[in-house]
C-alpha cells in the first residue's frame, strides 16, 4: 500500500497525481474464503479490519450489493459520543469513541475525527434529572461527561438561544471528547486497510441466498456466483431482516426511516454538536460549513429512504426555536436512511440459530458512532465463536430472557 503523507502529496503534485493507485483493490471474488462479511459499510469493514488485525484472520471477503459505504454509513449525521446510561452501551460506545481518537493514524487515512464536544440539552426538569443521572453513571463507567448549566452552554455555543420562551435550556449533558468524523472517510479508510491486508472487497455483488449444511453455514449465493466460507457475518443495516430471512430465522427488528438534512455552507458559527431530545432535533456544523441537521424516526415500517414531510418540518421548527438565526439559511439536501430498530432500541451483536453465522444489526439511529467498537466486538465474536465482554450483553437471547438494555430512560431519542 502506498503510504499517505504530506510528502507523498508533494511528490505526486509534481507529477500531476499520476502515481496514485487505487485506494482499495477491486478483485474478482475467489470461490472460497475463511470468512465472508456481507455489507461493506462501516460495521462490515471494521469487522474485517479487526479480524485481520486482532485475530490474524485475513482470508476474508467483504461483499457489497451497491457501492462501498453507501448505506447508513454514508447517510448519517456523523455524531460520535458515548454518554450512555446503561453499562453495556457505555462500554461499547466508549470503546468505539476511544478507537476513533487515533483511527486516522492507525489507518493512515484522515477520517477527520473532530472531538469538538457534544452537548445534549436538558429542556425540561425531567431531562435535567435524566442527564444528571447519566453523568453520574458515566463517572462510574469512566466515560468523561459532566452536567453543565445554561451559562456554560451559551459560552460553548453562542448562537443558541438558551432562554427561549417555550423550552429554555436548563442545562446539558456535556461530553467534551465527543464530536464528529467524516463518515465516508471512515468506510474508505477501513476499506483501504482491509485491502492492504489482502482481503477482497467486492462491490456490486448482492447476496441472493445463504447456503447451510446441517445447521451450519456453508456459503452464499451472489450475483457474481456462489462463494463458500467457514464463517459468515451479516452487517447490512436496513436490510438485516431480509438476510435473516434467507438464513431461515426472524429478527426482533423493524425497519423505519430516519431523516436528515444539510444546509448551504456558511462561515463557521457553531463549534459543538448540539442534541435537543425534547424537540427531537440535533445539529452540528461540518468542516465544509454546512449545518447538518437530524431528527427522529418515523413510527412505521418503511424501506423508501424517505421519511414523512411533517416529521422533518417538526424537527426544523423545533431547532429554529433554539437557534432563531438559522431561519434564513437554506436547506440544501434532505434524505432518509433505513434504520433497524429493535425491541429495546439497543443493537444486536450475536450468534444465530445457524452455526457460524453471525449477525450485527439493530443499531437504530446510533450506528455510525459505534463502528470501531462494533467491529472490534464482532471480530472477537467471530474469531472465538462466543462473545467477548463488549458484545456479551447484546445477544439475541436477551429478548427471550428479559434482559433489556433500554436507553430511553435517559433520552427521548437515541442517536
Amino acid at each position, binding site marked *: 500500500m502506498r503510504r499517505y503523507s504530506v510528502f507523498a502529496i508533494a511528490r505526486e503534485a509534481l507529477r500531476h497525481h499520476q502515481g496514485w493507485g487505487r485506494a482499495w483493490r477491486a478483485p474478482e471474488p475467489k470461490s472460497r474464503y475463511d470468512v465472508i462479511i456481507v455489507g461493506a459499510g462501516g460495521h462490515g469493514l471494521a469487522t474485517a479490519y479487526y479480524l485481520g488485525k486482532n485475530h490474524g484472520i485475513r482470508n476474508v471477503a467483504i461483499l457489497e450489493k451497491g457501492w462501498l459505504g453507501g448505506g447508513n454509513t454514508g447517510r448519517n449525521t456523523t455524531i460520535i459520543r458515548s454518554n450512555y446510561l446503561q453499562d453495556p452501551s457505555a462500554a461499547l460506545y466508549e470503546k468505539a469513541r476511544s478507537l476513533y481518537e487515533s483511527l486516522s493514524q492507525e489507518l493512515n487515512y484522515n477520517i477527520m475525527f473532530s472531538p469538538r464536544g457534544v452537548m445534549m440539552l436538558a429542556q425540561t426538569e425531567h431531562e435535567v434529572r435524566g442527564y444528571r443521572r447519566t453523568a453520574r453513571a458515566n463517572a462510574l463507567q469512566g466515560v468523561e461527561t459532566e452536567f453543565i448549566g445554561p451559562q456554560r452552554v451559551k459560552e460553548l455555543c453562542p448562537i443558541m438561544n438558551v432562554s427561549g420562551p417555550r423550552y429554555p435550556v436548563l442545562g446539558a449533558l456535556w461530553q467534551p471528547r465527543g464530536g464528529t468524523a467524516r463518515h465516508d472517510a471512515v468506510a474508505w479508510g477501513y476499506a483501504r486497510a482491509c485491502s492492504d491486508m489482502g482481503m477482497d472487497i467486492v462491490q456490486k455483488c448482492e447476496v441472493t441466498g445463504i447456503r447451510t449444511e446441517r445447521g451450519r453455514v456453508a456459503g452464499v449465493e451472489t450475483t457474481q456466483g456462489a462463494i463458500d466460507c467457514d464463517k459468515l457475518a451479516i452487517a447490512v443495516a436496513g436490510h438485516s*431482516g431480509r438476510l435473516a430471512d434467507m438464513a431461515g430465522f*426472524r429478527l426482533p427488528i*423493524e425497519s423505519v426511516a430516519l431523516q436528515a438534512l444539510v444546509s448551504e455552507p456558511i462561515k463557521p458559527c457553531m463549534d459543538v454538536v448540539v442534541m435537543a431530545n425534547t424537540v427531537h432535533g440535533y445539529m452540528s456544523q461540518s468542516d465544509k460549513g454546512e449545518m447538518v441537521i437530524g431528527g427522529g424516526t418515523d*413510527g412505521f415500517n418503511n424501506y*423508501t429512504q424517505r421519511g414523512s414531510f*411533517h416529521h422533518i418540518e417538526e424537527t426544523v421548527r423545533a431547532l429554529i426555536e433554539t437557534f432563531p438565526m438559522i431561519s434564513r439559511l437554506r436547506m440544501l439536501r434532505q434524505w432518509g436512511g433505513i434504520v433497524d430498530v429493535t425491541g429495546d432500541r439497543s443493537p444486536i451483536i450475536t450468534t444465530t440459530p445457524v452455526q457460524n453465522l453471525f449477525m450485527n444489526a439493530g443499531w437504530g439511529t446510533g450506528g455510525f458512532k459505534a463502528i470501531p467498537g462494533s467491529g472490534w466486538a464482532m471480530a472477537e465474536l467471530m474469531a472465538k465463536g462466543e462473545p467477548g465482554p463488549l458484545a456479551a450483553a447484546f445477544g439475541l437471547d436477551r*429478548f427471550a430472557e428479559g434482559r433489556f438494555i433500554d436507553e430511553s430512560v435517559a433520552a427521548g431519542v437515541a442517536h
Partner: protein
Amino acid sequence: MLMLECPCCGVKGEETEFTPGGEAHLKRHGPGAPDDDFEGYLFRRKNPAGVHFERWRHANGCGKWFHVARCTVTLEVFGTYPAQTTSPPADILRRIRKKRPDWEGWR
C-alpha cells in the same frame, strides 16, 4: 407521507391524523402458551420489504383502531379495513395480487 382512509368513519386524512401500531393480525397468547409464541408475538414481527399489514389508529379522529394493507417500499396503500378481522378481506388480497403478481401471500 401517507394518506389513509379510516374504514370506521370514512374520513381520509394524512398521516398526522393517525398513529401507527405495528403488525396487524397478530394473535396474542395467554398464560400457558409457550414462551416462544409470546416472544414471536412481541419481538419477532414481520418486517417485509413489500406488502405489509399493520395497525393504525385514527387518533385525531374517531379514535378507532383499524388495519392497513400497504407496501413498505412504495408506500402504496392497497386498502384499509376494520381491526376486528382475523385476516385481510378478499377484495384487498385480490387488489394486491393484481398489482404484485409475485407476492408470496399474507401468511
